């Protein structure tokens, strides 16, 4: 229980630390804090030689629930609802259709360039021997 708690605290410190460092780096490298932070963490893993155990244990849990953290930004849609209603047709075309068209295009290009992975059980929580 204590160990788990400490793992979470440790992970949060690492993630927030990397993010804040990324923010500082943004002054010099014109990329968002998130991306800088991600590269910084990658660098740490590369230098350390592997991913520390506590991070491997906790990060996948956080990533799985990332959706929740988008909710505050999504609530912004509510504030713009009038504008969305007024321009619904343009938005449907500009957002829905172009997004699906882009997805189809990228999927096609990806499949042409990259060999499909062998069909194995891709459930990350599955512990059974492959």
């Amino acid at each position, binding site marked *: 229980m204590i160990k788990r708690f400490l793992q979470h605290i440790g992970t949060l410190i690492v993630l927030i630390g990397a993010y804040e460092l990324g923010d500082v780096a943004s002054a010099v490298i014109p990329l*968002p804090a998130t991306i800088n932070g991600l*590269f910084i963490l990658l660098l740490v893993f590369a230098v350390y030689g592997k991913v520390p155990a506590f991070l491997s244990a906790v990060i996948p849990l956080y990533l799985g629930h990332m959706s929740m953290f988008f909710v505050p930004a999504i609530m912004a849609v509510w504030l713009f609802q009038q504008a969305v209603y007024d321009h619904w047709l343009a938005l449907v075309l500009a*957002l829905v259709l172009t997004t699906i068209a882009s997805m189809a295009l990228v999927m096609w290009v990806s499949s042409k360039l990259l060999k499909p992975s062998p069909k194995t059980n891709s459930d990350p929580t599955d512990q059974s021997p492959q």
Partner: protein
Amino acid sequence: MLVLCYGFAIRFAKWTNQHILAHPILITTTLLLTLTQLIEADVGQVMTHLHPIKYLLGPLTVGLALPVYNQFPVLRELGIKVIIPIAVGGLFAPLSAFSVLYLLDAEPAWQLTILTKSITTPFAMDTATMLGGIAGLAAVFNIITGMIGVMALPSVNKLMQINDDKANGIVLGTIAHGIGTSKAVLLSEQSGAFASLALCVNGVGTAIVLSVLLG
């Protein structure tokens, strides 16, 4: 309150057997907005109270370094072949949306704002402002695009007769940015890694193009 709504949304999603419309984001947001209206609170104020959660999205996105690192041997082996689809999507997505709005004679500010629909949300808002668009609206376009990406994936798989982890990851990361990546992570570590990579490359590419355009 947010955590309760989210917890409920997860259970609801399982109950409806992961039906497309029952994505936790939609359910949670709907619940939260409904509750806000019921207690007659101000949505803007609620959003201010949720600021710590909004902040944590940044550090959490940094955590995507984990799947990328684990998949590094695969990514390194594929090299430029991974970058090409990301570049294609990274150009086609914003330009096609811009063209539609341009042809429909939408307000110029909207045309500029929609260019940021496929890059990671916080960056999209800053970029929209730099280009002369509207930050709040950028978030709206951005989120809607992300949701469409996640919801439309099975249909696109069927349409293209392709259902591969790598391709799915690249599509989700390039077009549906962070929201797509969080879905890709749930599909498999490989698709999560490819989506994270696509997210980064798209972000880096956009930053470079912008520095050239605006610099």
